[in-house]
Structure formats: C-alpha cells, structure tokens
C-alpha cells in the first residue's frame, strides 16, 4: 500500500475501510482517495466490493473499521443526509428519482425553496432550469414528470439534483448501462463540464473502453481489497485492467482433473439450440453430456446469468429450444425441477433461501413431496435426510435447525447444493457458486463440483473468476455481449487466451456500433 501522504490535495481519502457481513469481508482495509476535478474510475467484478464502498461513501452503511477524511477533516458519514450536506452525492443505477413528480420538484426534493410552509414553485423551476442549462441541457422541460423522460434525461436530472446540493463529489454507479452510444457521448461531455468546475467524479462501469476515454485514474477492487490504486487511466492497458479484475489474488486449490475426459459421444443430457433473449443473449447453442462440467466465461454483462436462468426456465427465452434427455423443456422452473434439473442462483439470499426458515427446511424445499403422503409430511424422515446431506457437505456449524439467515456465504451455498443433491438432479446450473465464499469453503465447493461430475451429472458453471472456470470446466464457452465467441476444451484455453478473445470481441462490437450510428 502506498502512502496517502503523497496525495495532499485529496478531496476525499478513505483509509482502512473494512465492512464484514456474516461470513465474508465485503471490504477489507480499503484505501481510496479522490482529487478534486478528476474522474476516478472504480473497477471490479460483481461482489468485489464496489457497491459496499460507495454505500459507505454515501452514508448508507457504516463501516466496521476505517476513517473517511473529507477536505482534510475526519468525518463521520452516519446517514445519507450527512454525506449530501458535505457535498457527496451518489447517483445509483436504479435512479432514485420520484417518477410522478416533475423535473423541478425532483431537483428541489428535500430542500425546496419555501415561504413558510409553501413551496416557491417558480423559484424551484428557475433553479432547476439554471442547473440544467449549466449542464448544457437547458432544453429539458422542468415541468415534465420524470417518468416520461428517457433514462438518459432522467440521469441528467439526477446530476442536476446532485449539483443543487452543491455536490463536490458525484458517485455514478454504472451510468452508461442504460444509455445508447450517443447518450454516452452526451454524458461524457457533461462529466467534462463537471470536472472543469472542480467537481470530482467517481465513475463505475463495466465497459473498460469508457474508462480510458474519460478516466484520469483507476482503482481496482477484488474480493473486498484494493488490487491496484490510482493507476493512470490513459496509460494502463485494458488487458492489464481485466487481468487485475479477474486474476488470481489467492492460490486456487482445484482438485485434479479426471484421468480421462468425459465422453462426448452419445446423447447429451442437455441440448440448447439457438437460444436468445432480447437485450441479454443471442443464438446460444451448446450440449452438455453426463459427467461434464461446462464453463461459461465472460465478463459481467455478457449475459451469462440471464442465459442460465433461461435454460432453467426461470425466464422466458424469445427464440431457440432447450431439450433435456431429448425432450423439449417449456414449462418453467417446475418442469425443469421435476425432470431433474437444479439451479444455484447468483443471489443466494434473495433468490435461493427462505432466510427465516430453518436450514433443514431450506434443504428440502425442492424435495418435500418425497416426504409426504397425501400431502402430510413426515417431518422426522425429512429432517434426517436433510441432516445427512448437510453432514456430508460438512455444514458449519452443523445444526440444521438454525435459520438460514445465520449462515456464512459458503455454508449458505452448501445448503443450496444440498437441496439439489437431495433431489438427485442430473443437471445442475451453478451461477457464481463461490461468490462471497471464503477461501477454505471455495476449495470444498470445487471438490464438490468435481465429485458431482464424476458421479455422471452434468454441470454448467458460471463464474466471474476466470481461473475458476478454466480450472474446473471440461469445456469452456466464451460469452461476450450475449454472443458465444468460441467453444474450446478446458485444458486448452489460458486466461490470456480468453481475455484476448473478449477484448477482440469488444473491438468488433465497437466497430459495429459505429457502423450502426453512421450507416
């Protein structure tokens, strides 16, 4: 870690910020400094700690350790109001505007110009108009309801609102995700105006090309730690940034590959053909054979989670077919589960677990019918089965009566895996199975994945950690912007091969984008 004393002009300095959730450190001693007038890009995969860091900065969550220095003064950010008062504004991905209020009302929200109890509407409108004009968007009608604006214009309103609080630091969380290429250009011009006025911008984006266009410096987070701080955005190669985001910060402990690769002859378990879903992925085809681990490599936003959900029937695909054992799947998750498929979704807490229920009941959520006769549950047998599988997976602490809420990330993942083991499903879709899981438990999950394949099950593995996909998968699909770039045996591709592919894909996309804009 470099010394922060070398940056006397820091507008903001966060030092040693640590935030623990049960079982995982979302932030682990993070140092982060921002200078007035710069665009500081914050990079990292899903779960790297970016969101937690900006929530600390916004005063939305309190860190367990560490200090925040603002303009040379230590400050306590105990609420969003505190942060706003200091001049730190955050523009979240889901814009926090009130949709059925006007532009002017939204800009003035919380600090309306008043006379006694009455809002001075004309003054509020004038103020909004002035702020928008400063941003080069004086043409936005201030009396229009925000719900009627395009995402790009709504974003401009958010920025105007930040400025109305005299923001000196604006955090933008993936602002370009909802914008077209033209709108991104407009946003960048606007960011240029902000920095000219000495406002600092913390910019979060998964589009690496953007970072070189507008960033001054880059900080990369991985697993809650800073892996690179204050890099020169223009001088750093994109490949280097990707390597920092996805590379190894820990030694991975993969089980040995089986002596013979699984046979790919014979009928596949799962056959996906031409699967597509608007704005997510296009024309994806693959086969999955018994005993095989198919890895899907791709950056955030490549459509990998959406693809997995569509295969499972959790979301409808617009085109294409999914066949299980040679028969099409079309009945949603119920049919998929009934026919021997299981999925460990990306977000365990919101998508996989009933947090208030016991671990045992979470384990049997997909199998409870087996313990029922005419709908009546045999609770003793149910508990015994759940306890047995959980013991096999070495659940810690080994008490299935506890609420799922109390478990660490790794153990929650074990419960989800136990659910599908109990179901004895033959196809298992794993979305980020080791996200938020500590190192020891990761190795256990890797071993489990390999075991399951050795038992003849087929697995599809999606992970933000490239080494994980390459280290476990028998075959790898490289996905970029919703398209399959290549399919290759797992032992063949190296990390840098995949990165090259993705970067080449990104260059092609940009070419295509330019053609679309200027036909």
């Amino acid at each position, binding site marked *: 870690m470099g010394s922060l004393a070398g940056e006397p002009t820091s507008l903001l300095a966060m030092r040693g910020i640590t935030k623990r959730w*049960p*079982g*995982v*450190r979302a932030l682990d001693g993070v140092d982060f400094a921002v200078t007035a007038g710069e665009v500081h890009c914050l990079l990292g995969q899903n779960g790297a700690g970016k969101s937690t860091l900006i929530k600390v900065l916004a005063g939305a969550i309190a860190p367990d350790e560490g200090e925040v220095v603002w303009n040379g003064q230590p400050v306590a950010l105990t609420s969003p109001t505190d942060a706003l008062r200091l001049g730190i504004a955050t523009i979240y991905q889901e814009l926090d505007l009130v949709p059925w209020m006007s532009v002017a009302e939204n800009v003035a929200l919380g600090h309306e110009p008043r006379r006694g109890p009455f809002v001075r509407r004309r003054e509020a409108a004038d103020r909004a108009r002035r702020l928008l004009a400063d941003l080069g968007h004086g043409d936005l009608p201030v009396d229009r309801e925000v719900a009627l604006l395009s995402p790009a214009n709504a974003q401009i309103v958010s920025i105007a609102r930040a400025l109305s609080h005299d923001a000196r630091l604006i955090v933008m969380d993936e602002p370009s995700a909802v914008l077209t290429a033209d709108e991104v250009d407009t946003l960048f011009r606007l960011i240029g105006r902000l920095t000219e006025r000495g406002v600092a911008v913390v910019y979060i984006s998964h589009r690496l090309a953007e970072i070189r266009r507008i960033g001054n410096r880059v900080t990369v987070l991985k697993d809650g730690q800073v892996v690179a701080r204050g890099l020169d955005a223009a001088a750093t190669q994109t490949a280097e940034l990707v390597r920092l985001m996805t590379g190894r910060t820990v030694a991975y402990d993969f089980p040995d590959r089986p002596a013979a690769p699984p046979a790919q002859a014979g009928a596949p378990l799962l056959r996906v053909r031409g699967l597509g879903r608007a704005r997510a992925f296009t024309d994806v085809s693959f086969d999955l054979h018994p005993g095989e681990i198919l890895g899907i490599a791709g950056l955030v936003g490549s459509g990998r989670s959406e693809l997995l959900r569509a295969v*499972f029937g*959790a979301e409808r695909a617009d085109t294409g077919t999914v066949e299980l054992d040679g028969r099409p799947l079309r009945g949603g*998750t*119920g049919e*998929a*589960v*009934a026919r021997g498929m299981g*999925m460990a*979704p990306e977000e365990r807490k*919101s*998508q*996989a*677990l*009933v*947090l*208030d*229920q*016991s671990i*045992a*009941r979470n384990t*049997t*959520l*997909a199998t*409870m*019918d087996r313990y*029922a006769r005419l*709908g*009546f*549950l045999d*609770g*003793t047998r*149910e*508990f*015994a089965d*759940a*306890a047995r599988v959980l013991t096999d997976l070495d659940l*810690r*602490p080994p*008490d*299935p*009566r*506890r*609420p799922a*809420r*109390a*478990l*660490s990330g*790794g153990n929650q993942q074990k419960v989800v895996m136990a*659910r599908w083991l109990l179901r004895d499903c033959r196809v298992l879709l794993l979305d980020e199975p080791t996200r938020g899981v*500590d*190192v*020891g*438990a990761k190795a256990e999950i890797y071993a489990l994945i390999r075991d399951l394949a050795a038992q003849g099950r087929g697995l599809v593995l999606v992970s933000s950690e490239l080494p994980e996909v390459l280290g476990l998968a028998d075959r790898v699909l490289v996905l970029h912007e919703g398209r399959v770039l290549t399919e290759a045996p797992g032992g063949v591709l190296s990390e840098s091969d995949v990165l090259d592919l993705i970067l080449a894909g990104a260059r092609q996309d940009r070419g295509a984008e330019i053609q679309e804009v200027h036909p």
Partner: protein
Amino acid sequence: MTTQDAPIADASGRPADEPGSGPTRAGGRFDRLRSIRIAGLGAVFVLFVIAGAVLAPERFLTLNNLYNILLQASVIGIVTIGLTFVILGGGIDLSVGSLVALAGVVAAAPFAQDGGVLAMVAIALAVGALAGLVNGALIAYGRVVAFITTLAMLTTARGLAIRVTDSRPFIISEDAFNTLGTDRLLGVPIPVYFFLAVAVLGWVLLNRTTFGRRTVAIGGNAEASRLAGIDVKRHTMLLYVLSGVLSGLAAVLISAQLTTGSASVGIGYELDAIAAVIIGGASLSGGRGTVVGSVLGILTLTVLANIFALLLIPSDVRQIVQGVIIVVAVLLQGRSRSS
C-alpha cells in the same frame, strides 16, 4: 479468513456454536421461539379473562357467557384462519366480510332453500370458492396487486349481495339449516364445533402438510420458492380459494344463527380478522404467523368486546382500546423490519 472458526452471531445475537437441543423436526428452533411468543400471547389472553372475572364477577364467569364468547368468536374466527393462510403466503384478502354476505344470501335464496340444507351449505361454500378463485386468478395470473383485487371484490361482492336480496333479507325456513347456528350439542353452540374443527384442521394443514410448508416458503421468499420448482402462482391462487371457502362456511353459520340471509352481515370482518392475525404474531409481509396465534388473537378481541359489553362501556371506547392493543402487541413482539 476468519469465518470458519469464529462463531457467527445470528440476528438475535446468540453465538452460532450453541448446539441446538430441539426436537428432530425440520422446524426445530423456530417452533420453540414461536412457542415463547404464543405463550406470551396466551398469558395476555388469560390476563384479559382474569380482568373480566374481576370487573364483572357475576356475569363474566358464567358458562352461558363463556359459550356466548365462543359463539361470537366462531364466525369471525373461521374467517381469520383463512386470512392467516393468505397473509402467511405474502398476500392480503380484504373481501372476506363481503364474501360472507354474498355466500350467505345466495345460500338463503328461495331456489337454494328448495334444495334443502345440503344444497344450501354446498352453495355457500361454492360461492366463496368461486369468488376466491376470481381473487386468486387475478392476483396470481393477472398480476393485479392483492390489496386492489380484494378491495374491488369487497365492493363488488357486497353490491351483488344487495342485488340478490333486492334489499330485503331472505328469511330462512329450512329448520335443518338453522339448527347449524342455533342449536347446541352437549351445551355448546354448534358453530363453536365448526370453529374448533377449522382451527385444528388449519393447524394440521399449516404444520404437517406440504401445502402449509409451501405457503410459508412462498411468503418468506417467492423467488427462491419458484427457483426450487414450486408452482408459486397456482399455490397463491389456492390460498385465496381457501380464504373464500372459509368465508362461505362462516356465511353458513352466521345465516343459520340469524335464520336470515342478509346482505349486511360481515361488514368490517376483514379488519377484525387482520387485527387478530397481526396480534397473533404474523408479519404482513408474509412468511411468519401461526394458526394458534391467530386463534388467540381473535379470542382476545372477542373477550375484550364481551367485557366492555358487560360493563356497559360504549363501543367507541372498545374500538379505541382495540387499536391500542394492536400496536402494543406488535411492539411487544419486537417485529421490527430488521429482526
């Protein structure tokens, strides 16, 4: 990393390593925590009974008055059991009171009375089921918010009930039907047996069947339930059908008690039933609640009403006290969002 060896405290601050010693059922520790809450609620209920005995010694602790309390609790109690399932599953049903009226008047209509007691009961249950099916289909498949759907059903069903009776209640001359509301068995009014049966069956349904388990899972996390292969829409719809059927049963008992099919019965039932479910410890956001709690909730409210009636205290005061009790119950149970 520290997670493997360090004990993790759960929401209630207990260290993680404390070995559980509960029964070997999948619910285990929750059943115990819930038991403590229910015991607390039971204690409050007993306090009310003691208060009644002290304040109105001559009139409260008579067998007749106790039967009276149970009789009063029966009709609304049956509705409350149905609503408990809906709320556990993450929904709400505001239409129950109006469904009682609609099912009651259709079952008491001349054509139904011609069919005899069995036809009348079957019609009441069928009307309730059908209205519940409409609620459930709109909510689960039509994606209309439950509050709005059942609010619409509240006014629609009430209007239909008035139209069916043409504003004149139907007098029920089928004696076998009226027996269900007016007769006693071993000294206990018949509706009380129905309430008891529904409560016991409701408890079994919730705690011993896959239906109950699914209800709680869906109310706790609908997306996780869906991804575990549970047909969330179908189940959600069935919850409203259940609530409708029990409203139909309540309609039978109240109509038989009054020997009249009236479009003006059941007004405000939904509010009393919701109050009882909440006092009983359920969470309006779903996933938490018990049948025993809801039964104790409705008994508490009924005893309160009875005491106030015996003491000739005007009902406005009872309403004020009831409001306070709801808030105090929720505060005492410590059900803040974070827990």
